[in-house]
């Protein structure tokens, strides 16, 4: 099976106060389509950095990231942006919704880059309905609970039918019930819609939902 996301000899170094830390150190990772992969490790092990690099949100110092079999190091920022828009969905730990947009508008936004606003609205309504947010369409992020905000963020990540969803500790700010709900949504997306999910987590019990674990330590595979 062809890997949908992979990296080869990946390096990322952070410089701070005269010292440098290898957040990602010569990593080789490969994720196949349909997998639900959880990246785990202690604080500072490089989990989030790896996720940012794989999701094309950050630039490696060395090495190559492959998305849909295409090497990405030579791609322009515009092309990477196009990849993120059409092929990848990203979910932030702190939801990262636009404060001035309602739940519906937040979800519509990426789709409005590719479709008319009518089409974007129809797609957003469908997804929000599936995520049980039909009664919160016009609420602003500040009027939603943490779990609801994260579901809106998931809906936004799904709006352009991505092949891969990246999630950076999506349950870190949620209570147990909301966390379980979010993970079940991921599981359903993975199993029913064959969307590849790559998620960073701190919680060992969440591994139950994953098909595979990538454990990092000091920027390397543990």
């Amino acid at each position, binding site marked *: 099976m062809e890997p949908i996301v992979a990296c080869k000899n990946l390096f990322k170094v952070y410089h701070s106060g005269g010292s440098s830390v290898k957040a990602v150190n010569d990593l080789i990772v490969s994720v196949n389509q349909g997998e639900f992969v959880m990246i785990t490790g202690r604080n500072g092990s490089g989990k989030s950095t790896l996720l940012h690099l794989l999701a094309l949100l950050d630039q490696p110092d060395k090495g190559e990231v492959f998305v849909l079999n295409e090497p990405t190091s030579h791609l322009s920022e515009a092309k990477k942006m196009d990849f993120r*828009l059409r092929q990848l969905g990203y979910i932030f730990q702190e939801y*990262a919704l636009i404060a*001035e947009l309602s739940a519906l508008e937040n979800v519509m936004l990426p789709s*409005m*880059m*590719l479709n008319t606003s009518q089409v974007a609205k129809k797609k957003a309504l469908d997804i929000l309905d599936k995520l049980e947010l039909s009664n919160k369409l016009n609420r602003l992020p500040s009027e939603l609970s943490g779990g609801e905000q994260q579901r809106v963020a998931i809906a936004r990540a799904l709006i352009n039918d991505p092949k891969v969803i990246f999630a950076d500790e999506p349950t870190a700010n949620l209570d147990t019930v909301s966390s379980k709900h979010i993970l079940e949504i991921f599981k359903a997306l993975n199993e029913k819609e064959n969307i590849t999910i790559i998620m960073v987590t701190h919680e060992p019990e969440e591994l139950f939902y994953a098909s595979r674990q990538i454990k990092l330590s000091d920027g390397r595979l543990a």
Partner: protein
Amino acid sequence: MKSQLRLPFYLTFKYLQRGNVWTLLLTSFMMTVAFVNAIFVSALFNGIVVGSNQQIIDTYTGNIYVAPKDGEDYIKNGDMLVANLEDISGVSVASSRTVIPGQLEYKSIHGNWQILAIDPEQESRVTNVADKMIDGQYLNPDDENGIIIGRQIAGGDGVEENAFSFKGAHAGEKVDLILNGQRTQFTIRGIFYTKFLESDKKAYVTKKALTKLIPGVNDNSTMVAIRTANNVSENSTIEKIKASGVTENIFRWDEVAGTMKAVSTSFTSINALMTLVAIMMAAVTVFIVIYVDIVNKRKQIGILRAIGIRPYIIISSYVIMAAVYSIIGVALGTAAYYLILVPYFNTHPFVLPICDAVLHLKYVDYLARAEAVMWVSAFSGLIPASLVVRAKMLNAILGR
């Protein structure tokens, strides 16, 4: 693609609709203040220039000034010329005057001031000296021994040129007019104060008094002041006067304004400089206000980039937002200027030694300043948004 083009407007509308209302109010207020500052300075200096120019026209030269032909001392048949001029289209009224080459003496203080013989009724239609009496009264046409003098001749406390004046003459007192060594006593009928220094250094007697002093002078005038009809071009009226056969020298008022023309030119230069400073201040204010607003939205801009919104859409939305702020500022500034400042200064003008100045904003200046504020605002949106969009996306999102 069409939807993409609408996105910046959509985002701007949502930011304004649901953003912090205090940010919107404060930014709009700052833009209003910046715009009012830009137009106020210009309007004030224009007001001083227009006010002082109007003082010259109203108190001395009229709009058009006729002087004797080159090489001649007098305009012959001045009153007939006045009658002919008043028949020309564009000319409202005219007044002939004769300068008396004499000296005035009051309580052993004597000095050389310009003494003009006038027809008081004719003169009062061209200049407003008759309305500017601060002591006594204006001349009666039949008065053969009365004189009115300007405040700078009468002198007194607070008078600008008191040192060279009668140092406190009043209406009813006597003053001698010395002409060719002959001394004739006149009664000061009144003292006028036009607030135009040059006019306030003149004295007027009637033509009847002059005829009594110099019987041969008859109807010889040394100048004719003409008031044009409202909204009639001075240049076109001059052409019509020349075409009617008048061969005397004809000047527009500003050609004989003397030192006031230099003052007026200086004010115009200062106005240009101050306006430039005001626009720069407006530019800096607008830039800071919008820059702070955009920098506060750095994380939001990072998120938009992360979810695939193109930089040009993000930048455009902030440029449009800055333009909206500037439109609000210009609109509120215009309202504040015309509804508050203009009425206030019309009733409380700036009292200056040369005139009472009110605000006077040229339409062209208004448009130029409104345009300048809008361009500055657009750049103020463009530059910080471009910088933030170019910054590392993750740093923007994670607040690093």
